[in-house]
């Protein structure tokens, strides 16, 4: 399965080394390696155990509130005057984003592995809140690493995590954002490897995380496919999702990868614009490298030093991307584009006013791309967009960007 060749299925990865083409792998310190292998075995066992799936389905339904609605965004469709726009409403889930899907899966695994302590990294705080939530639900102590910069710009989520009983550790090393939080979580893990489960929040990190998180998030695409079939009797023409690490996107995309008539578009955070250098668009503006356990597209300088990302959205402010996305880019199955801070802010306001839904800044990047393509498409065509989170957490920072004093 090399990048560039045409596989029979786009869903067969990763290979036994945890690779998607050249991407992925297990680039971790030896201390962690035995645990990574143990995790892989534990996940394989769980995956083949109907009891594991039944338990997860029960939690998804009664705790997270799944299935999430598929919603025809009628007024937004009228506004753009082109393709029909559907929202997969992950923002309606318990904790307000798609992150809970992955956390419920992984906490079940942590319990099976008899781990007694949960650690997690978070950017916007959505994954931190979801991790703190499942840890509270199952009575496990939880430590969340969060960049000091993000602690400052995501105060409501920091308080939510504390209410849920988690310890939030502000990380001051580096630029104090998501990548630094992930470094610190890895340092904790390597120190407490015997009793600690590292609940990674996105489709990145060493194998088996990218595949495992994808599997837990694929419920998004599986449900959406069925729901759209019921509503329209067919597949969508285009899928659009925002990408930081890329877990909501991978969850939506994966069940559609072999439906080759469906165009798939991932939208990275363009920040102040790709030419400015201040963005978080790893594929559009980066190159392949090795960080946080996997090979993938990274923002880096000429010496292979990792650059700081920039995005208005803390959840997308990461200099890497899940390795499966890197592979899907290189083989051309998924198209990766970017949307700027400004475009995302416009989409934020438009969606709020036209649909009565305040979206998180992250999926506003996806909506910003919908604004570009919907008007150019026919009225009988369908765009399915993942509304990955709600915007409550962002109202303060948006007010600040708009110059409104609260």
């Amino acid at each position: 399965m090399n990048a560039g060749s045409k596989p029979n299925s786009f869903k067969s990865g990763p290979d036994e080394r945890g690779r998607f083409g050249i991407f992925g792998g297990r680039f971790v310190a030896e201390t962690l390696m035995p645990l990574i292998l143990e995790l892989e075995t534990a996940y394989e066992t769980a995956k083949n155990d109907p009891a594991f799936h039944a338990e997860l389905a029960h939690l998804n339904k009664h705790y997270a509130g799944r299935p999430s609605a598929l919603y025809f965004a009628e007024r937004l469709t009228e506004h753009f005057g082109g393709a029909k726009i559907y929202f997969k409403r992950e923002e309606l889930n318990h904790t307000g984003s798609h992150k809970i899907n992955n956390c419920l899966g992984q906490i079940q695994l942590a319990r099976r592995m008899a781990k007694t302590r949960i650690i997690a990294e978070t950017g916007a705080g959505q994954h931190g809140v979801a991790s703190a939530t499942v840890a509270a639900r199952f009575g496990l102590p939880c430590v969340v690493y969060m960049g000091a910069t993000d602690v400052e710009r995501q105060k409501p989520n920091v308080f939510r995590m504390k209410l849920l009983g988690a310890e939030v550790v502000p990380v001051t090393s580096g630029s104090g954002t998501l990548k630094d939080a992930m470094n610190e979580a890895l340092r904790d893990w390597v120190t407490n490897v015997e009793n600690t489960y590292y609940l990674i929040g996105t489709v990145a990190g060493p194998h088996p995380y990218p595949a495992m998180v994808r599997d837990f998030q694929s419920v998004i695409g599986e449900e959406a496919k069925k729901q759209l079939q019921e509503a329209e009797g067919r597949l969508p023409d285009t899928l659009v999702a925002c990408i930081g690490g890329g877990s909501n996107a991978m969850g939506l995309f994966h069940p559609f990868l072999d439906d080759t008539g469906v165009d798939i578009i991932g939208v990275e955070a363009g920040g102040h614009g790709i030419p400015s250098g201040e963005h978080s668009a790893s594929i559009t503006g980066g190159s392949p490298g090795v960080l946080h356990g996997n090979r993938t597209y990274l923002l880096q300088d000429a010496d292979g030093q990792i650059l700081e990302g920039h995005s208005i959205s803390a959840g997308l402010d990461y200099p890497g991307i899940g390795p499966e996305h890197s592979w899907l880019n290189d083989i051309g199955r998924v198209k990766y584009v970017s949307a700027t801070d400004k475009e995302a802010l416009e989409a934020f306001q438009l969606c709020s006013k036209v649909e009565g839904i305040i979206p998180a800044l992250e999926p506003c990047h996806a909506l910003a791309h919908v604004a570009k393509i919907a008007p150019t498409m026919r009225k009988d065509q369908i765009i399915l967009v993942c509304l990955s989170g709600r915007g409550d957490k962002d109202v303060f920072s948006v007010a600040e960007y708009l110059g409104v004093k609260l």
Partner: protein
Amino acid sequence: MTTRLDRRFAKLKAEGRAAFVTFITAGDPDFDASFDILRGLPAAGADVIELGMPFTDPMADGPAIQASSQRALKAGATLKRTLDLVRRFREGDGETPIVLMGYYNPIYHMGVSKFLAAAGEAGVDGLIVVDLPPEEDDELCEPALKAGLNFIRLATPTTDDKRLPKVLENTSGFVYYVSINGITGSAAPEAQGVARAVERIKRHTSLPVAVGFGIRTPEQAAQIARDADGAVVGSAIVSAIAGELDGHGKMKSGGDARVLAFVSELARGVHGARAKAAE
């Protein structure tokens, strides 16, 4: 093929003493000050030198080495400059083995074959790359061995007997036993546990075993050197460098001499360890 590392460990074995392995970060606090310290290490008693390749995201390192990496990068360190430092060191020292230690991305970004050629030419003897476990041996380990460099692997308390042969398979030069589960510069290792671990590793290999992570004082170094073939000190030396910087991050006058005096104290601990134990 014997390498500088093989020759050095053989010589120390013949002398009946353990190796003192010192770690500093290349280019910390800047290129010239770093060279002054590097050049002085052998005379201060270093038998093997580990030279850290600065990286923005040193995931296995504690605050002291993280900070040293940041100081070096701020002063313009690059992988190419690290190799320049080795080349300059080799002009005056053809014997002391130098092992580059760091993370894979800067090497991957330069290109593995280009890097190996440049490292060999500069006079590098071995590589320790923290985020390349045996599962990724085809990335750098195998090409490095082919290029005549030693590839030194870390073994840890989590590396059990079942896994140890896999870890040792492509290891050469020496084995670096990480004495604790954790990051560099954290808790001090417990001597008895270390002795048992060294014995366990030696059941699987004839390579020398050096022990590191958490050794800060001459006494601790001496204790480790009784049971292991080498004691590695990193964070404590790097912290000593940090303690000699002025408000602008420059080395204070005489700072390098004071750092090297501290290295000499540690060396005396290591070198006197077995004589003392035999008394």
